[in-house]
């Protein structure tokens, strides 16, 4: 029966896609071990992984749920600073860098999810432009709060304050987050491998979600809220679910990102970053998870590659032209035709399921 064949085709496609990502990882790993990667590109490997996770998770809100969020960087920020605090606290207790990073990411995901609920419950009553504007505001609020946050650790444990004057640590205590100055002296424990594993986990979970009853309910809310309601689907519940899962992954990306630099400030996770990630999502195709992976990776390395190829003068020009070309391609008949050529059966399937 062609039904079985089709299910097979979907599975085969995603095996191939995962295969490509793994192959890319191996190639980069070999290149970097044999010294074939420039120093600056090497420094970008972890941020690229973080951006890929950001783009894939934002696509869950924007492409799969269909609500425009302009505040994704806010959740990344929550994850970044949570991760920093957790790794600092656990420095002695958990000597293994990898394990400490993993624990930090789990806590960061939980923290970002909690903030996701706090932001999501009021925000998701809105939709469209209003929702977009309020998510933007939420991101700014998170930034402002982190900006006045003082967290330190001494023998008595963790201390937290939002007033610098009242913040004192014992002799030998360690300042972790120092208000607007942010964090410095981070023990850089993020690695390309850690980022790669996080990407795989993110893709696995989000693609699974899309192909499940929960994911279908989220897409139903996107396609028609009134109809979703009419068949017993609580639209608010599934909007919140998508939003919170999206926030949790942004939190993990935040930890990965932060633990790759020696200093991090709240200002790094601003509106511009939210927009940058949104650009990846839009150019990769709304609801197209693999598109987000490619767009995020490509558009992050591209400026660097162009610089290396001595296109320095025209670097930003080429970058801009490419952005426009991608955008045109995405909305074009050509893409539609290419998709249809891959088999009329597949074309009939949904974007989210193209996977």
């Amino acid at each position, binding site marked *: 029966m062609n039904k079985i064949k089709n299910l097979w085709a979907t599975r085969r496609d995603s095996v191939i896609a995962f295969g490509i990502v793994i192959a890319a990882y191996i190639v980069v790993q070999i290149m970097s071990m044999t010294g074939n990667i420039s120093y600056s590109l090497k420094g970008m490997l972890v941020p690229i992984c973080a951006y890929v996770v950001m783009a894939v998770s934002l696509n869950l809100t924007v492409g799969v749920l269909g609500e425009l969020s302009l505040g994704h960087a806010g959740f990344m920020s929550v994850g970044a600073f949570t991760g920093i605090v957790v790794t600092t606290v656990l420095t002695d207790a958990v000597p293994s860098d990898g394990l400490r990073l993993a624990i930090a990411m789990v806590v960061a995901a939980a923290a970002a999810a909690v903030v996701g609920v706090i932001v999501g419950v009021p925000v998701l009553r809105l939709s469209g432009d209003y929702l977009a504007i309020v998510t933007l505001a939420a991101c700014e609020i998170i930034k402002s709060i982190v900006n006045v946050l003082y967290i330190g650790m001494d023998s008595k444990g963790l201390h937290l304050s939002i007033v610098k004057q009242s913040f004192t640590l014992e002799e030998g205590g360690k300042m972790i987050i120092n208000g607007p100055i942010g964090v410095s002296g981070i023990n850089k424990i993020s690695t390309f491998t850690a980022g790669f594993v996080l990407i795989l986990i993110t893709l696995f979970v989000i693609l699974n979600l899309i192909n499940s009853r929960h994911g279908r309910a989220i897409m139903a809310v996107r396609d*028609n809220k009134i109809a979703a309601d*009419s*068949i017993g689907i609580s639209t608010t519940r599934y909007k919140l679910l998508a939003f919170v899962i999206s926030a949790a992954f942004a939190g993990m990306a935040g930890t990965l990102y932060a633990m790759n630099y020696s200093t991090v400030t709240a200002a790094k996770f601003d509106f511009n970053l939210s927009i940058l990630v949104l650009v990846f999502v839009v150019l990769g195709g709304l609801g197209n998870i693999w598109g987000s992976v490619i767009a995020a990776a490509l558009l992050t390395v591209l400026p660097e590659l162009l610089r290396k190829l001595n296109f320095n003068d025209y670097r930003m020009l080429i970058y801009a032209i490419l952005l426009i070309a991608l955008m045109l391609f995405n909305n074009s008949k050509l893409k539609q035709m290419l998709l249809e050529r891959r088999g009329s059966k597949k074309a009939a*399937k949904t974007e*989210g399921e193209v996977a």
Partner: protein
Amino acid sequence: MALLEVRDLGISFGGLRAVDEVNMKIEKGALVGLIGPNGAGKTTVFNMLTGVYRPTDGGIRLDGENVVGKKPFEINKMGIARTFQNIRLFGKLSVLDNVKLGFHNDVTYALPESLIHFGSYRKKEKLMTEKAMEILKVFDLDGQWNYKASNLPYGKQRKLEIARALATEPKLLLLDEPAAGMNPNETAELMQTIELVRKQFDVTILLIEHDMKLVSGICEYLYVLNFGRLLAEGTPSAVLSNPEVITAYLGD
């Protein structure tokens, strides 16, 4: 006790009294028509029955349980499903997924199973697919299960909406002009399908239709709405020979 009891139902939009003092009693297993000229308030009655609008007056009971004030998704869980006059499908999803969504509250598994595809995920998905394909077969849509819903021809979209509503296993099915936009052949065929569905799925049906002759073929009881009020009710032959009804329609 009747399956659906509507008592003195009314709603105002600003100064407009769209529905006023409507009383209905629908027995379990019945196939009932709600007819009336354009703007009579038929769709508005459906919207109140399904919680899209909250009535300003009156009561609605399903199997003796109060419906007024409940949210639409809760009312569906209580046992009322519907289709829409202006088709509302999940356009980007496949035909199969549209119907599988109807089983959302019936065939369930937990969120972790959705995220990791373990436990009963595979079994429940298979069950849902089988059940959905069965319903699709009734509507002759099984051959197009993998089409994007928005790519279906108009007539088939209407059928898919009915299929999706039936998947929620409702006690009461509300159909808002199910034959709109269909040619006479398709319409006749659809009416037969509706009769079949009532028996096969053991469901009570209330359907809105413009064409009085068409409903009189399958409905055993009709309510006639005009300017938001019930103008007449009874068996099709009694209603269709009612002079008031004839004037309302001719004056349309």
